[in-house]
């Protein structure tokens, strides 16, 4: 093996997969940055948003043709994102906020509880059988020389890039984005500036959940929608966030892309059996925790007094 065409083929596959991980990892890392807590219900928020998006899409798609089905697709994604955003804020308010002053273990357990509740609720309401999300376009691969790229992959890359650039601009430039960074650095001092920290936390959950719903809806085209669809992808995205340096937004982006590439190339080039593909992420997790626990872009944190 070793042709360039093959290499670019795997690169493309790795980048799309990594982009998805990155979108989901952002939610974990943003919440961790502010609350020092892992929202283990994140993958289930992704799943709920995907279901809602699917229902909306099936309802409005009807006899639409061509370009209009794509519009309908993105409109449905937007509804799914909004639903997840509201769901994320509601979960925070009901299940996490009252536990903010409790031990660090309490909100973590609460998150695991919420995760089970959501996936069981979905199974009860909509059944465990996976639901197919139809492509809004003809997904037969486009051949660029020897490389085959599907329109689906192109769409994923475009959406991921747009979302990441928008998020980065928001965090770096906007008043609210700066307030989010200030809050994650020092909550009490942020309050002294007049920042409503509770509102910042709610917005953080909303943004993270909306990004997760986006990722869920995009992959649903390929993997369909089912109650546990967010579990493994969510866990791997969590690994990506840790690899990049949890709490660090650029780290989540880098970690996600990297994990996608390693998984793809690990199977394709290193000959790791496909059945063991899912273990790659967790082996990387263990290695990172042993070698560089603060992650690639994370700072070694001193315990603050």
């Amino acid at each position, binding site marked *: 093996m070793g042709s360039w065409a093959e290499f670019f083929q795997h690169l493309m596959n790795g980048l799309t997969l990594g982009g998805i991980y990155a979108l989901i990892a952002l939610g974990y890392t943003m919440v961790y940055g502010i609350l020092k807590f892992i929202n283990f219900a994140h993958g289930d928020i992704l799943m709920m948003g995907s279901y809602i998006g699917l229902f909306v899409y099936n309802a409005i798609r009807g006899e639409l043709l061509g370009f209009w089905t794509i519009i309908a697709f993105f409109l449905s994604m937007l509804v799914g994102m909004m639903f997840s955003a509201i769901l994320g804020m509601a979960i925070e308010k009901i299940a996490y906020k009252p536990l903010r002053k409790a031990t660090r273990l309490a909100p973590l357990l609460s998150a695991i509880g919420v995760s089970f509740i959501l996936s069981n609720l979905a199974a009860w309401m909509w059944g465990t059988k996976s639901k197919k999300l139809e492509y809004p376009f003809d997904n037969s691969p486009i051949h660029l020389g020897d490389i085959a790229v599907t329109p689906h992959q192109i769409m994923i890359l475009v959406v991921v890039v747009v979302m990441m650039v928008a998020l980065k601009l928001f965090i770096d430039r906007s*008043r609210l984005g700066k307030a989010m*960074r200030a809050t994650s650095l020092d909550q009490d*001092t942020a*309050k002294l500036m*007049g920042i409503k920290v509770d509102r910042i936390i709610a917005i953080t959950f909303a943004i993270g959940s909306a990004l997760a719903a986006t990722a869920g809806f995009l992959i649903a085209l390929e993997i369909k929608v089912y109650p546990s669809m967010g579990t493994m992808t969510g866990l791997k995205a969590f690994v990506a966030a840790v690899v990049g340096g949890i709490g660090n937004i650029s780290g989540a982006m880098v970690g996600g892309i990297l994990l996608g590439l390693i998984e793809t190339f690990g199977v394709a080039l290193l000959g790791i059996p496909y059945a063991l593909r899912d273990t790659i992420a967790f082996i990387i997790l263990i290695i990172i925790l042993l070698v560089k626990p603060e992650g690639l872009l994370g700072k070694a944190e001193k315990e603050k007094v």
Partner: protein
Amino acid sequence: MSELLSIDHISVSYGNIQALRDVSIHVREGEIVCLIGANGAGKSTLLKAIVGLEPLVSGSIAYKGEVIARNDHAFGSHNPLLRFFKNPKHAAQDTRSLRTDEIASRGIALVPEGRRVFADLTVEENLDMGAFLIDDDAFIAKKKKEMYEFFPILGMRRKQKTRSLSGGEQQMMAIARALMSAPKLLLLDEPGLGLAPLIIQDIFEKIEIINKEDNVTVFLVEQNARMALRTSDEGHVMENGRIVLSDTSEQLLENEKVKAAYLGE
């Protein structure tokens, strides 16, 4: 001069330890008032109580006549059920303590102990955060310009991450950040801590200018008693969470006990 800040008989506890016992201090508009005392006397706790970061066990704190902090438990307002069924007619008199961000919005700014700058934000972004409550962009730009003139070193380091600043520069930045919101009352927690004597002098001169020219009332807490008393109009001495002595700063500088215990004479 009218009274700006009224601290009346407040107590604060950490678990079983009483950090503040029956403390009363009144600050009039336009004054510089200082609180001196040894490390661990409860000075920082008092400032935290004023800005709503420490709950009161008893007593109350009022700013411009409005109660901003009180013991919420005494009124049952900590209980969500009681709050839910509360007669709306009584709501006005049963006000809760204000949150820290609400207190900031009233015009009180604290320069916290240890400066607490947002280390990963640039100097300019830190100042933006100081002006978080202000919607007027032109006003914010004007304020920033003023700060860069007042503290030229900050203007030079505008785009630098705050963590790269020296201790003195960080202290100036923390003060500038607090001034960005154009506060009426400036609270300072040990502005001289850990700084070289010349820089301390510079900072206290700046504090006097802020007070005289911008008409900002200042309440400052300091271990460096001589510097604090020379700068202020009125002083209070705190020991073990109690106010043991209150007088004009001039008198305190002459007081034998203060001389022996805090001025090293």
